[in-house]
């Protein structure tokens, strides 16, 4: 019993890291995503306003900007650490205790890491860097 108590008092550093990423991803998703969905997903396709991704030339020039690349990396990758945490616990709440296990953690948080890598690669290879 004494051994159990000592083990429980150890700070949960990994949990702290995932919790921090969960909070940061959540705030980024809350502040940035709705306007992208509204402008790029609704107003643009309905031709209500001109949007940068409606034409190849404006979109590729936009994607070449290093500040835009950095912004898009944060916009796309960071929320996935939030989503991973939420969806894992959603499964637990809906009666899937296996979502608590280490393999499940590897799948969900590993998935967020993979998406970060893919986003990095897509942003580096899609449009050549331009400072104009």
């Amino acid at each position: 019993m004494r051994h159990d108590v000592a083990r429980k008092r150890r700070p949960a550093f990994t949990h702290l890291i995932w919790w921090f990423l969960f909070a940061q991803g959540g705030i980024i998703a809350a502040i940035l995503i709705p306007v992208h969905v509204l402008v790029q997903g609704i107003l643009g396709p309905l031709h209500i306003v001109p949007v940068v991704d409606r034409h190849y030339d404006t979109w590729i020039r936009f994607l070449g900007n290093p500040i835009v690349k950095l912004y898009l990396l944060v916009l796309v990758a960071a929320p996935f650490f939030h989503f991973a945490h939420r969806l894992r616990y959603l499964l637990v709440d809906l009666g899937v205790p296996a979502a608590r296990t280490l393999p499940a953690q590897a799948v969900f948080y590993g998935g967020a890491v993979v998406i970060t890598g893919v986003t990095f690669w897509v942003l580096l290879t899609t449009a050549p860097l331009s400072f104009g």
Partner: protein
Amino acid sequence: METVTSDVVKEPPGSAEAASAGSAPRVYKPEMPLGWWLRQRHYFLYIVREFTALPLALWLLWLLFEIQRASTGPKGYYPPESAAFVVFSVIVLGFALYHSYTFLSLAGVIINIKLLDKPIPSRVIVLSQFAAWFVASVVIAAVLIGFAR
């Protein structure tokens, strides 16, 4: 956010008498009925809040795909036009707004700042979060529209 209860809980000593000496301790596994979250409005809204992650994730994956498609060159690129995509975005926008509302409202509970030894009221903190959301939205919309032709 999520419960911190263990899914394996030992029974209290009094009730352990039924277990014979030497056998493994009996475990209590709390079981929730599958539809527990449909019983109360608060449970339902909690599950909806957690579920917002899925449509938002799908929309961001679409955005990543949209970025990647720009590498196909001017002839292969065509902007999203379909009614199905607009309907999908309208549904996602509903979930996105609910995520923003619930997450930014939480800041009033989490953030605790003192100014001149007086705690800043949580209403002010929540208002500042919503103001930041508004300003960021206006700036991003201006950039997405301003760089178009």
